[in-house]
């Protein structure tokens, strides 16, 4: 829009600027009319002559009077002519002055018009510029305003965000504190429990050690009995291994035997199963806890070493 206006403005101004060049002031014509001005012709006057003299003098006087009259007539005539010419000259001068004046007035008017036009164009231009400047200013202001608004909104948002963050942190902190407190409580409790446990453990350790010793004793007994009971088949190699899961009754009687992993050799696996089943009553500790922990269910691995 601004550009359009600018283009229109430029077009109008340009047109109004070029228009006055079409009629220049006719100064040279009036100058030619003034030159050349004709000069008055020279008058020759007659010399005085004696008698005859009186005729001659009368004549002379008559002639002199005629002459004078002629002269006076001529003079009058010349004078009239002169007057007429002067009149014409004057008229002409006046006309010329008139024309000149008219031209001058016209030129002046034109100049004035032009000036006015220019001024107007300038004014328009300035107005346009001003408008544009104002528009620009308005736009900038608008922008500024928008930016300001935006900034304010942003600030508002930031503010809200910060508030939320503060809130969250606060909540977190509270939670942490709660948690810490809970942990601390727990720790205190655990410590208490631990102390209790330690006391129990000390007792249990003594018991465990006893159980372990007891267990090891019976493990060795079982191992020895199994060794006596196991007939390693002649196809056995030292790589063969069979694992059995043994389940015992509290009396030591075999409640169940299961081949967990075989050797791939049926004779070998059978020999292991047979050995495990041979012990129909396993040597087990009299202590029930030791039995439950170690001998209720256990694994036997048959894996020959030092085969002949």
């Amino acid at each position, binding site marked *: 829009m601004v550009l359009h206006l600018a283009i229109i403005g430029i077009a109008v101004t340009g047109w109004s600027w070029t228009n006055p060049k079409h009629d220049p002031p006719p100064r040279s014509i009036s100058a030619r009319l003034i030159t050349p001005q004709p000069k008055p012709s020279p008058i020759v006057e007659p010399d005085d002559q004696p008698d005859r003299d009186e005729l001659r003098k009368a004549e002379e006087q008559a002639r002199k009077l005629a002459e004078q009259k002629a002269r006076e007539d001529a003079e009058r005539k010349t004078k009239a002519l002169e007057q007429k010419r002067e009149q014409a000259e004057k008229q002409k001068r006046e006309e010329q002055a008139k024309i000149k004046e008219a031209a001058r007035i016209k030129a002046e008017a034109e100049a004035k018009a032009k000036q006015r036009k220019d001024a107007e164009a300038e004014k328009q231009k300035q107005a346009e510029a001003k408008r544009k400047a104002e528009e620009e200013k308005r736009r900038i202001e608008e922008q500024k305003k928008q930016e300001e608004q935006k900034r304010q909104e942003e600030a508002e948002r930031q503010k809200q965000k910060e508030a939320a963050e503060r809130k969250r942190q606060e909540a977190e902190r509270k939670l942490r504190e709660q948690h810490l407190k809970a942990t601390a409580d727990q720790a205190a409790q655990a410590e208490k429990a631990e102390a209790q446990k330690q006391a129990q453990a000390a007792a249990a350790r003594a018991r465990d050690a006893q159980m372990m010793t007891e267990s090891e004793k019976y493990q060795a007994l079982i191992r020895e009995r199994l060794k006596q009971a196991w007939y390693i088949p002649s196809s056995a190699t030292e790589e063969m291994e069979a694992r059995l899961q043994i389940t015992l009754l509290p009396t030591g009687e075999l409640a169940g035997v299961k081949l967990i992993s075989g050797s791939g050799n049926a004779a070998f696996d059978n020999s292991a*199963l047979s050995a495990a089943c041979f012990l129909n009553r396993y040597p087990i500790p009299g202590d029930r806890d030791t039995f439950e922990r170690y001998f209720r269910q256990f694994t036997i691995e048959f894996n020959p070493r*030092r085969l002949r």
Partner: protein
Amino acid sequence: MTQRILTMPLPQKSHTVTGFALMAAILTFLAATTVHAELLIRVTEGADSAIPVSIVPFAESGAIPPGDKVSSIVRDDLVMTGEFRSLAPEKMLSLPSRRDEVFFRDWRMLGQRYVLVGGLTEKAGQVQARYELFDVNTEKRILGETASAPVANLRSLAHHISDKVYEAITGVPGAFSTKLAYITLDKHNGKSRYRLQVSDVDGKRAQIRLESPEPLLSPAWSPDGKKLAYVSFETGKPAIYIHEMASGKRTKIADFPGLNSAPAWSHDGQSMLMTLSKDGNAEIYQMDLQSRQLKRLTNHWAIDTEASWDSAGKGLFFTSDRSGGPQIYYKENVNAEPRRITFGSRYNARPRPDSNGKFVYYVHQRDRAFGIARTNLKTGEETVLTRTESDESPSVSPNGRMLIYATKQGDSSVLTVISADGGDAYSLPASEGDVREPAWGPLTR
């Protein structure tokens, strides 16, 4: 030779132990609730004694010929291995012949590990055997089959059952249906009488294949068990013969100047190792049996003899006194440098490798006594297996589990079988005179 024996598996009877299993399941569940790591007991050694096995006399129906009972042949077979001991039938609390007659508790009380029960039914000259082997401890049947053979061939049937029982328990095929060849020497009308004989592994059903007033030596079985090679002095000097068992046809294959001895077949039966001294000194040669072409395998100023192929048939063991006294050497292949195997004493001779490539067996002298020893080919460890005075000519059973050798008993020489791991010796029934040079025949299917 061996009659073909037909075998059929018996149907496995369903034997339910529901109550037992249920109880075990409950206990397993209870035990599973405890959290600690389960106890593991490792057993790395076994009983160092023979496995107690009861061979219950078989029930009989129909015209079963008199003589040795099938069950007692089986019993003797198993005991001969040195891996089993059997309960005498008089000590048995019952004589079951089928599963529902077996009271495991009784056998357990008797300390038995396995019980073999069965029955024989004769019908139109054929005897059918039905037999079942039970594990006394697990109360499970581990073998159940029927097999049949002509009435005249009850021993073959018995050896077949022995093979099956042995394999079921040990995981190794039995070698009871194989044959032995050996040389006997007795005096007949004041003259020496050498005989080449072939018998069952228990020494029974011996048949004389050749008789000669001159020494017979070194019988060697062809891989298919159809021929025997041996050394005979019948021409006044040693020569190597091949003897076809079925036809009795004999072929003299090596009669070179000097020594012709120690024949040993290749695994494909196409060639034979032998010791010849035709080139001045005892050396080992390989003869192509088709072309009779010889290839010399050793070349040493010392004596090289008693060669036999290793289990893979690529390398050979032999005896050489290149170190001063006889020792066992091994050539990885026919062109390789010999490597000495034995170092344990000053005299080690007549090597016989087993078919598994694990051991080589030989005559071993220590403290002036000759025994049988073996060396573990992987570890080089030597084990002396017999400590009698003059044991000789070891021969390994084709399954690698037994060893037969000749030994002195009083004034005469007898054959003895032991477990290849050593242990109790089982002497074959003595015949008149000396028995020597045993050769264990191959497994034939």
